[in-house]
């Protein structure tokens, strides 16, 4: 029961007092005013009136003639309160509130009818989502509709999330780390040995003592030994870590692709192919390189710096302190530049996918490009995309190119300071010349590493940007989600029950209030103008999309409660544009059932009237067909796709304009192939040519997202309604249609 308490906080005190016997039934928060400016408002429905906020609260008593009309356009929904004399009020809201508005409308109708009939209204249904007021699906606490809208931006620590992929390789990573530690330590030995070399050998020699050859030999052997040792260790760790990172990269790529395959058509509809290609190809590779090269180097550098610092401090704390002075300055610089670089790299990534998008756009469409002689323009488009790329890169390089030399300069200054301070210390007999040389040897390594470390900033940012784009895909929840507790799919006989289904794509309502009950084995012909929602309805039945309102049940089970794959294997789909994958004809036919025997494949091809032309191919069923099946004609490809659908023996068959892309003779061939396919299955066929559907048990006529007529050809013709008009238009058109090249007498030729 809705009560005052359920109202949003802001409105609780605002609502005018209700009569003692008056109850609050429903409410709707609106966010636009009549001039379409953003302004919050409230409409409330009580037992016998409608209240609306405004400068003053407006109240309308519920009467039988009152009605609430709902429509939407371009992201704005409108509710209009009308009676027989005209419009009484109008309320506007943005579409996020549409489900709530529709629910309000339903409540309104129920309440009005109850006032009219004097009977209490039928009790309200299931628990509703507190945000959008949609009824919650059973055993789920979160509203799927709103959860999808919860937009949590990815954290900045995206790279850490790669741990998920690194975890299986923990042991190798640990081994790699220990090796790194050892290798780094080994590389720090040589400068240490320069100290005795200087103090015990060279300087005494200058002062007239002979060279101790044995000691020299030992020290030089030590230098060589540590170098060889460091070499061996570095080799081992580089090999192990490269191996691991390559595997992590591969896992990342396959996981992303697997996830991508599970996403709904809605996702693919909104993405550019080039962009997705770039993400899975380039970005994973970039992350890979980052892990195998840069991260490794970075870890080594950190170790090196820490170890060097320890050694330096143990030799002489004062000199060490002076040596380390440039460090905080460099750290500060890195921090400053980091932000600039990160955004820059993100930008470069986006521009880069712009470049790939041009490629992905034009290569499949190359026939059109050439036919309209637009090669130059496409080349220009590519050049523009590249120029944009250059611009962004140039801007970034300006910062970047300043950064590296500055680090270099600081390094030089640092060394200068060490020299000066070192000479002063030597002059005051605080340290020996050997210590100073050792310091200088360490410090040049130290700053070298620091310089290299500063480069890590850019690659880390690049990798983080890449990781973010990968996780963008991985985090995207399919809008056709797998149910948490899937219901077992009962044996499918082919009955489909469509109940009050609505569907919206973006801000356009495509289907509204569609009710249709399809019996097992029935053939339904879907008819209507293009854009009337036929294909959308079929897409919903296939569960390529989920309904926005209402439900679709198969064998009494809501489609959303069974596993997608369990359901889809009962569906055979023949599309207008058959898609053949690169491979043999046999593989293409067996696409939906890879373990099909050769006999089954041939049988399916025979039934699809494809057998004979397949035999005419150079290698029969083993002939290769290309990406778009270039070597086959449209009708031939279509028959292969029919064979593909036949082979899986689906209980539900969907023909989406299966014959409209071919000539009449081929259509006849395909028709007889289809007749084999239809037998004993629930069939839903969309066809532009109405004659194709005359065998349908029932024709469903759709117009602008609604079902307007249902019946058989003869009945619908007798009715002289929508179907009759469509049919008339088509037969008339065929006679009246001018042949190509002929102009209608009244038509002026455009200049």
């Amino acid at each position, binding site marked *: 029961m809705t009560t005052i308490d359920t109202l949003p906080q802001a409105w609780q005190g605002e609502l005018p007092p209700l009569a003692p016997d008056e109850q609050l039934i429903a409410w709707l928060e609106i*966010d*636009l005013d009549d*001039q*379409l*400016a*953003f*302004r919050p408002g409230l409409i409330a429905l009580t037992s016998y009136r409608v209240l609306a906020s405004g400068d003053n609260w407006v109240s309308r008593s519920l009467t039988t003639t009152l009605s609430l009309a709902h429509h939407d*356009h*371009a*992201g*704005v929904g409108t509710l*209009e309160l*009308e009676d027989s*004399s*005209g*419009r009484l009020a*109008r309320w506007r809201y*943005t*579409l*996020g509130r549409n489900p709530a508005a529709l629910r309000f409308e339903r409540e309104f109708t129920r309440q009005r009818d109850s006032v009219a009939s004097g009977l209490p209204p039928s009790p309200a249904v299931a628990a509703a989502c507190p945000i959008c007021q949609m009824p919650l699906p059973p055993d789920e606490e979160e509203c799927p509709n709103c959860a999808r*809208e919860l*937009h*949590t*931006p*990815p954290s900045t620590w995206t790279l850490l999330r790669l741990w998920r992929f690194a975890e299986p390789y923990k042991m190798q990573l640990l081994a790699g780390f220990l090796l790194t530690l050892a290798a780094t330590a080994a590389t720090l030995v040589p400068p240490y040995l320069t100290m005795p070399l200087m103090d015990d050998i060279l300087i005494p020699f200058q002062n007239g003592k002979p060279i101790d050859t044995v000691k020299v030999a030992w020290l030089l052997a030590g230098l060589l030994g540590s170098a060889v040792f460091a070499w061996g260790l570095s080799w081992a760790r580089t090999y192990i870590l490269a191996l691991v990172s390559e595997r992590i990269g591969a896992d990342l790529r396959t996981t992303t692709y697997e996830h991508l395959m599970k996403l709904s058509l809605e996702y693919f509809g*909104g*993405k*550019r192919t080039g*962009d997705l290609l770039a993400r899975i190809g380039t970005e994973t590779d970039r992350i890979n390189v980052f892990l195998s090269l840069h991260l490794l180097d970075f870890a080594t550098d950190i170790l090196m710096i820490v170890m060097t610092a320890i050694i330096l401090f143990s030799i002489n704390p004062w000199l060490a302190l002076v040596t380390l002075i440039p460090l905080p300055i460099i750290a500060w610089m890195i921090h400053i530049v980091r932000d600039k670089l990160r*955004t820059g790299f*993100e*930008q470069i990534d*986006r521009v880069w996918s712009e470049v790939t998008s041009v490629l992905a756009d034009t290569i499949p469409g190359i026939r059109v490009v050439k036919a309209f002689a637009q090669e130059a323009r496409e080349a220009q488009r590519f050049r523009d995309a590249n120029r944009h790329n250059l611009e962004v890169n140039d801007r970034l390089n300006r910062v970047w190119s300043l950064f590296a030399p500055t680090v270099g300069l600081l390094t030089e200054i640092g060394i200068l300071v060490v020299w000066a301070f070192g000479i002063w210390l030597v002059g005051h007999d605080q340290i020996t010349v050997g210590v100073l040389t050792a310091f200088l040897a360490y410090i040049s390594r130290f700053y070298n590493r620091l310089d290299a470390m500063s480069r890590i900033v850019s690659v880390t940012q690049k990798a983080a940007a890449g990781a*973010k784009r990968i996780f*963008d895909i991985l985090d995207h929840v399919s809008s056709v989600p797998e149910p948490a507790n899937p219901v077992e799919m009962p044996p499918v006989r082919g009955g489909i029950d469509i109940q009050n289904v609505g569907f919206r794509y*973006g*801000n*356009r309502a495509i289907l509204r209030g569609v009710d249709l009950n399809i019996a097992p084995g029935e053939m339904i012909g879907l008819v209507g103008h293009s854009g009337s929602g036929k294909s959308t309805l079929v897409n919903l039945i296939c569960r390529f999309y989920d309904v926005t309102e209402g439900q679709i049940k198969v064998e009494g089970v809501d489609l959303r409660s069974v596993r997608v794959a369990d359901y889809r294997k009962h569906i055979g789909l023949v599309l207008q544009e058959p898609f053949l994958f690169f491979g043999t004809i046999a593989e293409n036919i067996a696409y939906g059932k890879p373990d099909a025997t050769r006999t089954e494949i041939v049988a399916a091809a025979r039934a699809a009237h494809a057998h004979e032309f397949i035999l005419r191919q150079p290698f029969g069923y083993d002939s290769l067909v290309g990406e778009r099946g270039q070597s086959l004609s449209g009708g031939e490809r279509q028959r292969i796709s029919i064979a593909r659908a036949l082979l899986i023996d689906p209980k539900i068959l969907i023909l989406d304009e299966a014959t409209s892309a071919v000539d009449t003779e081929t259509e006849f061939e395909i028709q007889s192939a289809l007749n084999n396919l239809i037998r004993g299955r629930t069939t839903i066929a969309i066809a532009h040519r109405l004659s194709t559907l005359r065998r349908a048990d029932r024709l469903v006529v759709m117009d*602008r997202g609604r079902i307007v007529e249902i019946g058989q050809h003869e009945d619908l013709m007798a009715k002289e309604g929508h179907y009759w008009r469509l049919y008339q238009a088509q037969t008339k058109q065929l006679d009246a249609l001018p042949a190509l090249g002929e102009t209608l007498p*009244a*038509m*002026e030729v455009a200049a």
Partner: protein
Amino acid sequence: MSRPPVSSPFTLSRNSFGRLVLVGADGTAHDGVTPIRAFAISAPDDGIALLSAEGKELQWIENLANLPEASRALIIDELAQREFMPAIHRIISVSSYATPSTWEVETDRGATSLILKSEDDIRRLRGPGALLVADSQGIHFLIRDRKMLDAHSQKILKRFL
């Protein structure tokens, strides 16, 4: 191919249900007429079609300026009721620079927030610096010229372009 209905005298009025009624040259009245801009962004005032409730074109208007005052006012009024493209004047803040990101904006229709699902939803228009931002609900926000925004907004915006 079909010819556009020839410009002919017609009268427009609004009935008590708030719907436009068009009476054509042949005297038939059409209830619930909707005006549509053919080039909503590139040439909003050129080419306006009046469609019937069934979506059939009844009248083609080359340019609004050539219409009698009364009809023009009705059409402009109706268009204003249908068109909802708030123009962003200022970006106050964004929840993150990674999408999806929630933007708090000031528009010519008041302050609101929008959710940008992906950078791809920002479309560059032909005009210099003009952008169209589609939010998660399909509402389009217009940025007339991004160079005219204040520095703070520009800085935020740049991160998404």
